[in-house]
């Protein structure tokens, strides 16, 4: 009982949004992060799905509230409203699909205009286990990320490689910004939330949200 209570306490709440082309593996990435396993027999996301997890970064408990969005172009009129207040954005592409990489700039523009001005953005090259089908090199993507001043990592939602790192890396950057005084968590509208005053009371939240992540 005590441990469960402890588990639900957090210092900050960060909203993350996962965007990128359809089929890049956004939902599988989220599922791997929350459940620590790959979900076979997947379905695609219609609109938005959620997940949340508390991670421990820099001596703080941080609750990540993650919004996983539909990738099909036709859903942009719907998903645009989900960016609001996001403190972190994951732009996912498929390293075996050149088109999904080429669309990175569009997604980046969406993230910069629709989320918070100081949103921390990471680009994620997913499916890095499929080395023989690779269509985008690590170097190329890493340069692109550098030019655009965003973070970059490659992951495999299948094996789990790099997945947790992505979320921790972004969370750490946001945390640093807060501790450097670049972001005042108390003035945030809904991007990050200070939860230090709270005694955990959302005991159902975690299990609930992991279930909804039907990758």
């Amino acid at each position: 009982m005590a441990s469960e209570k402890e588990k639900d306490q957090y210092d900050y709440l960060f909203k993350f949004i996962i965007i990128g082309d359809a089929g890049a593996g956004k939902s599988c990435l989220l599922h791997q992060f929350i459940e620590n396993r790959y979900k076979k027999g997947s379905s695609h996301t219609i609109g938005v799905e959620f997940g949340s997890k508390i991670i421990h970064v820099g001596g703080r408990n941080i609750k990540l509230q993650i919004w996983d969005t539909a990738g099909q172009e036709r859903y942009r009129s719907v998903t645009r409203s989900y960016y609001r207040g996001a403190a972190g954005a994951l732009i996912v592409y498929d390293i075996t699909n050149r088109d999904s990489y080429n669309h990175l700039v569009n997604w980046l523009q969406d993230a910069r205009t629709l989320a918070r001005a100081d949103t921390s953005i990471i680009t994620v090259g997913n499916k890095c286990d499929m080395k023989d089908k690779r269509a985008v090199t690590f170097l190329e993507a890493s340069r692109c990320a550098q030019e655009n001043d965003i973070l970059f990592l490659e992951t495999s939602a299948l094996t789990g490689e790099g997945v947790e790192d992505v979320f921790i890396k972004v969370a750490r950057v946001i945390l640093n910004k807060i501790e450097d005084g670049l972001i005042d968590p108390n003035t945030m509208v809904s991007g990050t939330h200070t939860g230090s005053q709270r005694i955990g009371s959302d005991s159902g939240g975690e299990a609930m949200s992991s279930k909804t992540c039907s990758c």
Partner: protein
Amino acid sequence: GWSLPRADTCAELARRADALVPAEVRAQVRMDAPRTFQALPPGCQPSLPRHEAEARVCRVLLAFEWRNSNAQVRGLGATYTQGMNYIAGMCLGLCGWSEELGFLLFARLVEDVLGLEYFCEWPPLLGYHTDVAVLPDLARVACPWLHTALGSKLFEEVIAMLAVRLLVPCFVLTGALEESNLLRLWAELLVGGRSESAGFLAALSCSAPAEGVRTPPRLPLITWFVGVVGALGPEAASAAERLEAEERGMAAVSCILQGLATLPPGWHPGPLPRPPASVAEDLVRVRRCLVAQGSHALAIRSLGLPSADVERWQRQFEALPQVGHGEGIDAATLRDVLQVYTPARADYAHELFLLLDRDASDSLDFFELMAGILVLSRCPTARKLDLLFHLYDTDGSGALEVDELQCLAATLARLALPAEGLREVSHDEVGPYADSPLSGAARAAPGQARRERALKTASELEECARIRRRLLALDADGDGKLSLEEWRKGAQSLPWLLHLLRRAGVVDCQGGCADDLAYFNLGPEKYRECGLMQQACALQ
């Protein structure tokens, strides 16, 4: 010749689709087909090998795509949207995975019950946006506690998030409704609406009179949605209340989605909190507004103007004295605008107005005015003729079809015969001209009202018929409509057409083109800073 693909089989249409459906749509369908089965209830799971079942989902979707991309109306035709694969899988499942039967059921559901516009190409997700505009009010009555717990803004967001998840795939969703409940909802959709099914498009089309509003066949979706919020909202409200503001929305959505499966077999939503008629009216109103915005954007794109400029001009346009409720500007305003900017052209205002007002609404909307500015600019006659073509190609199909030709002919007839105030003609006399074989719901234009010009006088009628025959003479391949090529080729060689355009001040009085005359002094490169809108605003 009109060839309808209805007699063809799903397999045949799917085969043709391989060549005709855009590659990105085919790729999306192939990507999503394997991601269909998890969402289907146990009774609809295929007993055939998985790869064959996937192939059937693909073929049904591609055959449907072909059938609709072949439709004459672009924009409002349905196109593949994620979630349609769930619906196709469910249809196949209900038909024992018979491909042909499943295809027919799918076509019936999407075309007659949901309406083609539900998944229309543009504006995207029109059905969702339309329904979402009416849902919060209904849901609030069904569960005021949830509204209180979330506040208005968050409540609307929660309803929208639930709506996209539930309505778009018709409740076919992993872990959602218990199977017998899902089947009952589908039975209501497929069978319950039968008497109304003739006319979802008719009920929602621009031309339908307000009193003719009927219950939309997809109303069961809305009824069930509101019922679900009513049943599961209280629990969601208490779950949300325990949390910080930032977490409430997500918790409420999750709580309701997970609650769906717990609704016992035989559960049924009560009646809608409001009588369906008013919901139908709301839907018609919202849908009109959305289609107008969507087709507006489509039309502006066809002019090829930079969007930032268009937005700026639009704001200026909106500052002009409007006709009615922000509809557009009238002939007098146009004259005033011309008077300020180029007094010499003001004399043409009336004729120009007639030419630009192609839907005979007695007001120019923004698109019509923009097209007019370009027509009057110093571009070559060929370009002006192109613009005129696009102006009258109201459905953006790339061809002037019978009713669009009729519209153009009627305008030109009015230009040819300035108001003479001859006798009014009876409906019988108008009939042969006003009726088009494609009139009505099936030809509903995307937003730009496609009202036939009511021709007032007998001489106008005669002139109109004459002009229509002359225009149809340009139809080189005899398919009953004018392609842009045919129009370009033919129009410049018609002295009478140039003569008529001259009357509207579009071409100069020497019979040549206006290229050398600085009517507006608007070279193609100068239209960007054309001061027309600024000048017009100064009038106020």
